[in-house]
Every structure is written in C-alpha cells, then in structure tokens.
C-alpha cells in the first residue's frame, strides 16, 4: 500500500487544484441568471431584456427554479453532512492528520 501513497497524494493535489477556484462556481453557477453577479456593472443587453421578462410591472420578480434544483427538491432534505469515505482512524498517519487540532498537539510559537 505504500507504493500507492505518492500517487494518492498527487491525485489529492490535483483534485484540490481543480476544486479551489471552482467553489464559487459550484455554489452560484457560472451563468448570470436570476440576480446575476451583483458586482457586475456592465450587463449585456440580452441579459437585461431577460431580466425584464422576469419582472412583473417592474415591482415583482418571478423566480423560476432551474431544472437542477427541481430535481434536488425531491431528495431527502437533511442538514447532516454524512461522511462518504470514512478514513481508517486506527492508522497512525491518519491519526496524525488531526493531531494538532487538540490542545495536546503542537502549538504555534
């Protein structure tokens, strides 16, 4: 199993590289649909006309859930964050990964 370690580390690194800049995209999506980028000062004209469609009498905004969130609406709504891949906490190195989270671990300075 030791041979796999470097490969695993490389994979983990790549995964992290990929996930880091995408977190915002993952949460809010890439498109400027609905309320779009609040900071965006210049909007496309197309975008504006789309927005106008969504507004009723310039007062109310019609929010249309996208298909992805419609599908999720039928999933179990539970705030618990289940552990998908439990680590083997009997292994020394896994235990070491959180060693300094405790007062018994190493302190800065």
């Amino acid at each position: 199993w030791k041979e796999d370690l470097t490969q695993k580390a490389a994979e983990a690194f790549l995964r992290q590289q990929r996930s880091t800049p995408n977190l915002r995209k993952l949460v809010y999506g890439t498109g400027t649909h609905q309320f779009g980028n609040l900071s965006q000062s210049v909007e496309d004209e197309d975008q504006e006309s789309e927005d106008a469609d969504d507004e009723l009498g310039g007062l109310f905004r019609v929010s249309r859930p996208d298909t992805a969130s419609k599908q999720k609406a039928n999933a179990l709504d539970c705030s618990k964050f289940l552990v998908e891949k439990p680590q083997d906490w009997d292994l020394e190195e896994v235990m070491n990964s959180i060693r300094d989270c405790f007062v018994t671990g190493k302190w800065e300075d």
Partner: protein
Amino acid sequence: MKSGKGNFLILSVLYSLDFEASFIRLIDKVTNGSRIEINQTGTTLYYQPGLLYGGSLEHDCSPSRGIGYYLESLLCLAPFMKHPLKIVLRGVTNDQVDPSVDVLKATALPLLKKFGIDGESLEIKINRRGMPPKGGGEIVFSCPVRKVLQPVQFTDPGKIKRIRGTAYSVRVSPQMANRMVESARGILNKFLPDIYIYTDHMKGVSSGKSPGFGMCLTAETINGTILSAELASNPQGQGEAVLPEELGQSCAKLLLEEVYRGGCVDSTNQSLALLLMTLGQRDVSKVLLGPLSPYTIEFLRHLRSFFQIMFKIETKTTEEEHTGGEKVLMTCVGIGFHNLSKTIR
C-alpha cells in the same frame, strides 16, 4: 420572514409526506396570518407568509422524522418572532437521519449566543426521550427575541480542549450506555485526556414508546467552537441489531472525521450560521467552515434568491501539517435586517 412579506411561494411537489404536512402545520402555528392552500391531489402548495408571532405553543411532530427536522427551522425563525417562542415538541428525539435534539442543544444554542441571542430563556429541555419508529419523546424549546443580530468574526477555531457527550438508552439495559462509553473513550483517549461522556438512562414514561440507544459526542475548543457527531441504533424491527461497542467506536470515529473537517461551526449548523450572518447588521461577518455540505450549498443558493446576497468564498489550505483538511472562509455583509415586530418595552 418579514422581508418575505408580499412575496408568495408556490411549490410543486410530487407527493407530500406526512412530516411535511406536520411541518406546515407547525409553521402555521408560529405565524399569524399565513395562508396555506394545498390542492386536492396534494401536488401543489400555495404559501403566503404571515407574521412570525411566537408565544407559548405545542406541536405533535410526525414520528417519521426526528424533532431535529422541525427544530432546525424553528432555530432559524425563533429570534425574529413578535413574542418570545416557547414551544413543546413531541415526537422522535433521536434518530439516524436528522440531527438529534441533544446535538442541537449542544451546538446550535452556543452558536445563537454568539450572534447576541442569549439570556436565561434560551433553552432546549429534553423531558422525554423517544426513539423511532413510535417516538413518544418530548422537548421544550424556548428562545428570546432580538431586534438586531451582531456581526461575527469566527476565523480561528482554536484547539480542542475537551470532549463531552451523552450515551443514552431507553427501554434497553442501562448497561448499554456504559458499554458505548467504554469503547468510545478507547479511541478518543489517544488524542485527549479530558473526556467525559454522560450516561443517560430514562425510565417509565420518559423513555418513549420504542427501545433504542445511541450516542452524541461534542468536541469543544478553547475559543468556544463546538464540533459534534452522533449515532443511533437501528429502529426496532429495521436492520440488524448493533452492538453498543461498535456504535461507540463508530461514533468516536465520526467525531474524528468532524474534527478533520474542522472549522468554527460544525457541519450540521453551517447553514444556521450563514443565515444569521446574512440577517446581521450592515457589517462584515466572517466565518471559517470545513468543507461545505450539499445542504449548505443549496442553502447558499436560497440565500441568494431570497436576500440577493452572495458570499465571498475562499478556500484556505492549512499551513500547519496536522490540522485536518481544507477549510473555507465565508465572508458577507449583513442585509441589516431589523425585527420590527418585536414589542418594545
């Protein structure tokens, strides 16, 4: 919510479940002037929000979901009521799906306090325990009202100084709790000496209608961050019997997973923290979280749809070696929400 007044919500659902119906009735109870219409086939729900009213109430929750399912929503709404909420909830206190009442008591209440919602009346009291499938538990939740929330800066969770917990057993041998405690300690003692897990064996009417046992663990840091983990036995007649030793060990390992995820708020309460940050005064709030749960991600999208607020999301790789996984720093400016219905005395 007050800012939602004037808007209305139409949900299309494939089927409505009994716990959802129970939840709608609960929302109807805590509000004044809500309009709720469900069509004959139960596929469309029309909901027009009323004023959050509060007061002394009671509600029988459907036993197909834990009380935690209902309580979580009440925790979000209770600080913004007209009158302080004091509600008796009956049903399943601990199950395998929802955050248990014990965990919410240990984690969500300290979190509310940090936003300035505190006082003697902030309390969750467990009168009776009830396990699935039949339930029979009872709790009292009371919460004071606040006009404004304080902005928060939680960027350093600090180191874990102690681990506490509760091992409970109802309608089974009281020895089960001790066996769970022993095995959990065996794992956690490798990290920390300061561990105390209470054993809670309720008898008679306080033990609900179904047998079961389980455990909740919390890790508390020097800065007051509380991370939690929990497990419960399979409901009577469903799945194989679990040994208390195995359950204790698995629960201890779940707590270690939660420590690995880390952050200043535990994974169950991420969304509550983000909501209270959103509804804070017009000031910058920051919180360091572990990886965002799918529920939290969906919640952030809802926050954008309802409050037009987007968080700044920064991934923080830990500089130190042995402090668990990646963290996420969430920053936002509160919308400056005021609870105008709070009576001034």
